[in-house]
């Protein structure tokens, strides 16, 4: 096999070359990171810490945990309840990767320091496809953070998810509302404590553009429609910009739109029945809701500012769709609270805030005092009931963890854990989202597509909404097709 050894030589050469290259990269970014670290210190808002300059954040996270560990007993007092877990290991599997993944790791670093347990975290974009494979093959992680309740149901059906231990249930009873506990409950057994949450019913706008044009924030649906008409009549730019392209998940942003409309025009009670399929997907009240939505964004007069026609909604990446607001070619963009990180990914110079470049107002209800909102969240499921796993579960359901997570996250994370100290949230948008989630006057509903069977919630609902824009299908046709796909 002489040829093989000769073949290996060039490979080795290349190997050396690349390692050398990445070493150069290291030193290069070290310089920049020290620069932006000082920037971030003065400007705690969001501007400096974007998705892109990852170095800064983890850099500071590490030093944070180091200093905390050094303070010793005091800092560990809160963790005494979990006991000494030295020599144990808890594996955690979730969707969070890159920057977001390191924020999570930082949030439980202190737990690991004080209890001695090793938390082995693995994040993957293929999480939703891989988790069932691992579970079935007998390689389940100790803890999985499920991005939606539908997956929890699938996992519980495998019989391998352990019911939540008492300490977790106590925390959830104390700090979460009953409906949040319900989302983590399957067939009467409580399995999974909620972790993070998001509020989705926001409209992004540019405070400066609104001030220039003399527009005010609408507080009722009629005002929103009137504002839309006004903007179109003034003719500076079109009112709405929308984009629902999201790779293999294309269409999901449109389902959030629909859910918002159903919650408003069909009402909360019907929303629940619709999600549970107690009324058909194409119930007349849903058709009306979709038509109301079409009046705004399936309307060449009102969309798709700076991007194209109605069809372009299907092709425009959701990550970019709000950007015309910055260009001044669009006034309104409906998106979730977590859209804030997209602004700074697109342009690190942008500021998000009431007096910044972009800001958001809650999507109005039919009346000024109704505050309907939809939102999502993730849930902690355990596939093991070893003491260290249960201790870690309890920690994740505690206000201490929520506070640690808020401290570790520059922007783009909130929770419905009422024990969270809101002042620790670093970005104004996260604070706004938290105030919505914590407001008892808000009519909150969980993102319906996350509760429906995946054939619909991650299938026909997405594709048919895409067809609604791309192929100009009528609301009735769209809803009929989704109804037909509901698994019997």
């Amino acid at each position, binding site marked *: 096999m002489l040829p093989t050894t000769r073949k290996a030589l060039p490979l080795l050469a290349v190997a050396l070359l690349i390692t050398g290259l990445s070493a150069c990269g290291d030193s290069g970014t070290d310089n920049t990171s020290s620069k932006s670290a000082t920037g971030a210190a003065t400007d705690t808002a969001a501007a400096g810490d974007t998705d892109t300059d990852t170095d800064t954040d983890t850099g500071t996270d590490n030093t944070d945990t180091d200093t905390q560990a050094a303070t010793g007993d005091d800092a560990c007092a809160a963790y005494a309840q979990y006991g000494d877990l030295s020599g144990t290991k808890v594996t955690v599997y979730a969707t969070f990767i890159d920057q977001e993944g390191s924020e999570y790791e930082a949030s439980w670093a202190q737990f690991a320091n004080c209890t001695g347990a090793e938390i082995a975290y693995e994040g993957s974009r293929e999480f939703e*496809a891989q988790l069932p494979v691992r579970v079935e093959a007998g390689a389940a992680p100790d803890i999985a953070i499920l991005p939606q309740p539908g997956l929890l149901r699938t996992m519980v059906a495998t019989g391998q998810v352990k019911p939540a231990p008492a300490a977790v249930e106590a925390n959830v009873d104390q700090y979460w509302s009953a409906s949040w506990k319900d989302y983590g409950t399957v067939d009467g057994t409580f399995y999974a404590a909620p972790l993070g949450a998001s509020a989705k019913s926001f409209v992004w706008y540019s405070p400066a553009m609104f001030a220039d044009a003399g527009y005010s924030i609408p507080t009722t649906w009629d005002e929103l429609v009137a504002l839309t008409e006004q903007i179109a009549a003034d003719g500076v730019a079109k009112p709405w910009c929308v984009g629902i392209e999201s*790779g*293999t998940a294309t269409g999901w942003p449109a389902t959030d739109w629909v859910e918002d409309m159903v919650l408003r025009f069909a009402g909360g009670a019907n929303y629940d029945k619709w999600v549970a399929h107690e009324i058909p997907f194409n119930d007349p009240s849903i058709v009306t809701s979709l038509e109301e939505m079409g009046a705004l964004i399936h309307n060449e007069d009102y969309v798709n500012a700076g991007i194209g026609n109605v069809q372009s909604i299907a092709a425009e990446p959701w990550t970019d769709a709000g950007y015309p607001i910055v260009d001044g070619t669009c006034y309104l963009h409906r998106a979730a609270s977590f859209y804030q990180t997209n602004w700074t990914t697109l342009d690190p110079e942008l500021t998000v805030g009431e007096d910044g470049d972009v800001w958001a107002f809650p999507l109005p209800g039919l009346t000024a005092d109704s505050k309907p909102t939809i939102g999502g969240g993730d849930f902690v499921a355990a596939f093991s009931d070893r003491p260290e796993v249960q201790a870690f579960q309890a920690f994740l359901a505690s206000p201490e963890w929520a506070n640690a997570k808020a401290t570790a996250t520059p922007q783009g994370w909130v929770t419905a854990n009422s024990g969270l100290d809101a002042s620790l949230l670093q970005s104004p948008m996260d604070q706004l989202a938290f105030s919505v989630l914590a407001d008892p006057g808000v009519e909150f509903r969980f993102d319906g597509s996350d509760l429906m069977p995946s*054939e619909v919630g991650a299938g026909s609902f997405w*594709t048919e909404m895409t067809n609604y824009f*791309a192929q100009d299908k009528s609301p009735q046709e769209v809803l009929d097709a989704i109804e037909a796909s509901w698994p019997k």
Partner: protein
Amino acid sequence: MDLLLHPESPGDKLLLMVIAIALFVVVTGAILALLSLPRRLPRWLAALGFLGPAVLAVCFGLVYPALVTINNSLKDRSGSRYIGLGNYVQAFTEGQFLVVLRNSVLWVVLVPVAATALGLLYAALVDRTRYEKLAKTLMFLPMAISMVGASIIWKFVYDNKVGLLSQAYVGVAKLFGQEVTAPQWLMNAPANTLFLIVVMVWIQAGFAMTVLSAAIKAIPDDITEAAMLDGLTAWQLFRTITVPMIRPSIVVVLTTVAMTSLKAFDVVRTMTGGNYDTSVIANEFYTQSFTNQNKGMGAALAVLLFVIVIPVIAYNVRQLKRSEDVR
């Protein structure tokens, strides 16, 4: 044990790799040594020695999972109850399925033919030229780029705003005095399937070119030289010498590309997500197995892949028979 199972440092990892290779070389060497011991090796023993390791590996890695899949295809979505041919019936009666089937057939016919033809033509054209290495590298590039890279590349071709094709279209229209906006190439069926097929051809032609180039080089020089002395033109040489001489390799390439394009779903998945009537069986298989967690249906669709490929296999059997007859 830790070094063998969970090496931490780069040095340990490389060491483990060397150990593994050494182990493999020793085992293979031992098999060969044993086989060369007896003076007259019985034929079955020789076959067993040469084939055994590969057949064993393939049985464990592919045959066994394939059998599991066939079994699963007869079960319901959770894999707990047999439902006979229910999944197949459902697959065939679902409204969209005929479109998916049509697309898959288009893929499995057009991709191999186009990729092989272009790869062959190109390999022959650049053969023996001064720029051969560079030229071949250019066509090989798409293969080397990862699937994610490829999908971004083609976004910059088909995109409505920043796509090269869209801009070229608008530009050409302008030459004729027309003001147009570019269409959404990937949204309008059935042409969009062809646009996706172009991407796959772009990727696979490099494979065809490389293999066929190796085959062309195996044509004995005396044959080509003699033909050239006969005054054959380049085209005649290509048609009457090159193609017939490497015909078996062409069949191999056609077959391989056909099978690859049949089970490929990344192009469809990353570029249209299977929307706008562009889905193929492999994509449906992925959706059913992983998004919908419908194991039975996913397995049934995977089995359909075997079924579609039967004509390709039959063609190979005929080729094999033909060449056996000659030898």
